[in-house]
């Protein structure tokens, strides 16, 4: 059991989309660094104590209250420096004049230097961390990231949980793993959002669809140090078990299609489907994920070649209305 600490800041930056550069708000784990989308990956092992701090950014500040929520985590605690509470207390939604203004305790840049959230990673899985303040605006602007919680022993050869997503006996053993964060971007909204001004969400109409913050063909570029650091291209050999960890961070539903291949769904919302008493895993050619939902799929390609993985809502496979683009990536299967 270890303590995993991550200090994040929120900053303004630029997202590069095919044919367009737009402003965004993102998390960074580098002090006054450039923000990224999705936010920095946080990795932990079951039993770890996570401390996620959100620090006031004096240089590239957004100019409105900020917070982080942890959907799927229970008993999240919070403290603030320098004005307290100093001792961790349970997170609570925040109110003004009797009406909720934030889903959780937030960083008030007028007085707080840092707000720290803390919880124990009790279950393996993939989880979102995301804005809990003006979430309709801040999540769309880019304030979301992923926490991976692995079972104890996942990295220990000969451990029965070695290279499993959910531990032994859950049918979640894998040879390689890819996290695929689905979302959509409304570039007009990005260009028009103002701090502390309510954005009319009736106008929300996305025009870019992304995996790990990138639109195809950028999705199949390597990882890099840009504001969209995570590629989503997959390479594997025939017979290897590829663990696809799909998270819908967007507001729309998405149907993630496995390029004609069939995968086995082994976990939904990070609850493994195979338990000691029941094997409820099932096979699919594509999965529809509601907003905020996650699915873990084991894909074991049997034939070499290239396959595209994409949103089966084909209108999301465009950039600037032109196919190919959008929410699509590729898996290359070698002999």
């Amino acid at each position, binding site marked *: 059991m270890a303590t995993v600490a991550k200090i994040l800041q929120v900053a303004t930056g630029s997202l590069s989309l095919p044919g367009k550069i737009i402003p965004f708000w993102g998390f960074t784990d580098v002090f006054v660094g450039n923000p990224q989308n999705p936010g920095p990956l946080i990795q932990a092992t079951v039993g770890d104590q996570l401390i996620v701090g959100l620090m006031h950014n004096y240089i590239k500040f957004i100019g409105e209250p900020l917070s982080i929520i942890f959907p799927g985590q229970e008993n999240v605690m919070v403290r603030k420096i320098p004005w307290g509470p100093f001792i961790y207390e349970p997170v609570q939604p925040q109110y003004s004049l009797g009406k909720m203004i934030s889903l959780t305790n937030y960083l008030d840049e007028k007085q707080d230097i840092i707000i720290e959230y803390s919880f124990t990673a009790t279950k393996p899985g993939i989880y979102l961390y995301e804005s809990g303040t003006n979430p309709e605006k801040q999540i769309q602007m880019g304030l979301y990231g992923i926490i991976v919680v692995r079972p104890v022993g996942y990295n220990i050869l000969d451990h029965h949980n070695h290279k499993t997503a959910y531990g032994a006996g859950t049918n979640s053993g894998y040879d390689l793993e890819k996290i695929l964060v689905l979302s959509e971007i409304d570039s007009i909204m990005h260009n028009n959002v103002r701090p502390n001004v309510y954005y009319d969400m009736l106008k929300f*109409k996305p*025009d870019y669809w992304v995996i790990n913050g990138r639109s*195809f*063909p950028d999705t199949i570029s390597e990882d890099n140090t840009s504001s969209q650091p995570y590629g989503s291209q997959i390479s594997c050999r025939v017979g290897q078990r590829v663990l696809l960890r799909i998270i819908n961070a967007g507001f729309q*539903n998405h*149907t993630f*299609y*496995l*390029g*004609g291949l*069939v995968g086995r769904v082994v976990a939904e919302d990070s609850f493994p489907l195979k338990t000691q008493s*029941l*094997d*409820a*895993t*099932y*096979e*699919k*050619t*594509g999965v*529809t994920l509601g907003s905020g939902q996650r699915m873990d799929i084991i894909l074991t390609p*049997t*034939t*070499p*070649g*290239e*396959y*595209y993985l994409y949103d*089966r*809502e*084909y*209108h999301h*496979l*465009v950039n600037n*209305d032109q*196919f*190919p683009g959008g929410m699509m990536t*590729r898996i290359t299967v070698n002999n």
Partner: protein
Amino acid sequence: MPVIDLWAKDGYLSTPDGNSIYFWGFSKSETGPAQLPGPYIIAKQEETITVNLYNKLSEPVSISFPGQPVVTVGGQPVQPQYSDGQLLSFVNHAEPGGMVSYTFTPSYPGTFIYESGTNPHKQVPMGLYGGLVVRPADYNPNVKEYKTAYGAGTNTEFDREYLLITGEIDPDMHQTVEEGKPYHVSKYLPRYWTLNGRCAPDTMLMDHVDYLPHQPYGSIVMGQPGEKILMRYIGAGIDNHPLHPHGTHTRVVAVDGRLLKNGNVDLSYKRFTVLVGAGQTYDQIYQWDGLGYTPQNPIPTTLPNLRNMGIGDAGWTMWSGSPYLGMKGDIPVGVVSYNEFGEYYFMLHSHEELQITNWGEFPGGMMTWVAIYPSLSHDVGVLK
């Protein structure tokens, strides 16, 4: 080895409100009409089939067969196709005027989609999709325990079966394709919703009616009390649709052509509304047992004077005028009853209710009926 020929070509769809809409579809022959959806393909598990695609359209066309292991073209597994380094097709395609031949051996029984893998943002909404049914290796329609969707012993026996394929149409988008103008997906706003390529009330017509040459498949579901009616849903459009059959729940036995069963564990479940997700399939058993009322065991309420009631406000009704199956009663003068034998009609429709309109006018769209007859020929509800 079965060989299926499909010709990609264009044509015009007819809607009940009098619209004629340009579309792309597959035809069974060079001279036959393009149709929506494409011809049903019935294959058999472990039996190799070949699908020849002849492209009569002005841009490349391909067919992908999601869920089929190892589709080959010229002996090689299908591969994405590029033009000037840009992705053009998910699988090998036929150039305009050309052809491509796909071969595969279905290893699983079930219900599958086939659809264009080229410019799918345009070609699939334009109509290049169809249904593929794979019979289990031990299928025998003449022996009850072998007339199944997924093989003997899988709890998927059925008496009748129906394929119901959902789709959407934005007529303006179709017109831009007809006129060769740019296809802007951001302008997409569907005005019609289809079951088997037709909008209600055309969905209620029989298969192969003369005046719908491009839309040969009806979607009325017919059966008898207590029968196991297999409904095979395919979401061929780009949107999800919650289909709700009145009358009773369905038991979902398989998704995407994969049985919901692991060893002896049977994961099938019952729902009254199934969300038909884009590109996905749902095999379900609908079994209506009724409530047991007959003139000898009468209903516990009194039938009011029908002159005081609303019956056939639209000028027609599907009702028999009687509460009892197989009986007919009085229908007010001036109302046409389409009820023949005292059968029961249960609506089956999308519960995103704007989708049961034709360009905003109810009734229409993604709606049909389940009709329960007192007795019905064995020839009804057979997929050929």
